[in-house]
């Protein structure tokens, strides 16, 4: 199939879904009380974005997501590199990290609430906890992706430790680290949402949970669209950066 045909087919699929969302509830084939027509949802979205309480909730959620991300990614990367590079750390921490990695983090949410309450700190702490392990695992993989031959080449030309770090390790690791950012954000965003929906006084997740409980389906779907767009935008930005350095991959 040609490139154009694929693009057209994707566009057709997208339009078909949108069309179905609009038409099926209007025709009564789907229950409009459960799935309001898309145009209703979009006009609600425009209204919501103008409301002060929604704007405030968005700011709170954004702050939680950003703070957690900024803590979890460097911290996880640092631990990951230490575990991969130091035989000592690796031997001691690896098994435990792998065990904890496999456990769903959401089951610890009640503990976070009991210890930290249901405010900003708890959301951030829980999101960091949820994101940290995937970052550690990815950073470990990134270090292991550095080819020993390349380090040997650098050493044979007299590279210092610092030069080996910045001229061999960093460029070797960039493709995997970018992917790590992307996946970390998915985990991070999910964690903040779960925490907000479970117990919170504000935040978009809290509003969505409320709308759901009150059967306000237009608001609920408007929130879903809003968050989806934010998440897709972030994800695609990083993916675009990944393709920029795809020629590095071997």
């Amino acid at each position, binding site marked *: 199939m040609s490139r154009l045909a694929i693009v057209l087919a994707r566009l057709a699929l997208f339009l078909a879904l949108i069309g179905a969302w609009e038409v099926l509830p209007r025709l009564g084939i789907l229950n409009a009380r459960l799935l309001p027509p898309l145009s209703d949802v979009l006009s609600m979205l425009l209204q919501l974005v103008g409301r002060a309480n929604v704007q405030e909730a968005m700011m709170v959620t954004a702050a939680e997501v950003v703070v957690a991300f900024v803590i979890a990614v460097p911290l996880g990367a640092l631990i990951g590199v230490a575990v991969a590079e130091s035989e000592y750390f690796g031997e001691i921490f690896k098994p435990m990290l792998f065990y904890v990695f496999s456990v769903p983090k959401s089951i610890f949410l009640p503990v976070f609430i009991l210890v930290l309450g249901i405010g900003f700190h708890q959301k951030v702490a829980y999101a960091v906890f949820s994101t940290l392990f995937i970052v550690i695992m990815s950073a470990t993989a990134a270090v292991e992706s550095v080819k020993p031959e*390349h380090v040997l080449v650098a050493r044979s030309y007299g590279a210092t430790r610092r030069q080996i770090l910045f001229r061999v390790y960093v460029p070797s690791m960039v493709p995997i680290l970018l992917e790590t950012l992307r996946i970390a954000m998915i985990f991070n965003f999910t964690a903040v949402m779960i925490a907000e929906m479970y117990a919170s006084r504000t935040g978009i997740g809290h509003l969505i949970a409320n709308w759901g409980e009150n059967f306000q389906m237009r608001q609920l779907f408007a929130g879903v669209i809003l968050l989806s767009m934010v998440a897709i935008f972030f994800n695609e930005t990083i993916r675009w950066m990944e393709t920029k350095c795809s*020629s*590095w991959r071997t």
Partner: protein
Amino acid sequence: MQQLADVTPGRVGAAGASVEVAGVSHVYEGRDGRVPALEDITLTVGAGRFTVIVGPSGCGKTSLLMMMAGLRRQTSGTILCAGRPILDPDPQRVGVVFQEASLFPWQTAMENVEFPLALRHVPAAERHRRSASMLNLVGLDGFGGRYPHELSGGMKQRVSIARGLVQDPPVLLMDEPFAALDEQTRMTMGHELLRIWSQTSKTVVFITHSLTEAVYLADEVLVMSARPGRIIDRIEVDLPRPRTYEMMATDRFGRLRERIWQQIRKPD
């Protein structure tokens, strides 16, 4: 294969220096105690000579080369290059050419060649001048902007050779550089290497598994035994230079090859 650019003839750079290996042994700590890997290796590679080391897998020939490059430390014995001991990597004295995967995929051919210079903070203009002249020497004019994944296996090894020579070291160490190439490319690369060698007069120590390659390239072939590696034979290859592909069909070539084979297959 793409047409490679014409090469400027004439001598390039500083001439070779001798490498002297005296009583080098190496023992490493294995699971079952101390394992002797190299035993009392003594050899001299004269300035500008082309020496090939062959031997069974695991005989320690790569270890020996790594020691000559200062990348690994022997347990005992000394290695002199240009009259001074090699203790650490010294790219001014020794250039190393590794197997195929050694180019950095995130750098262009030119940037790869310039890497040793960039480590020493050589100004960009000087780096470009030297990498361009090295790419010309190895027949890659016009390919400097390509990334490794855009080059054939043979071209990648040309880039590796250019990188090894860019600081104009008197000695070039080559660790099975053509092992990953197909037979035809391998022959072409061997021929090209001899041309580059005759133009630069470097001292070359070359490791290979291929006996044909060994005889075709070498002034002298050193045969190593299975572990612990020892030098069990030295064969002077008295075929005239420049070497031609036709020589491979001669009796003389066959006898030399046969003699090396007899040594390698000999049980200890």
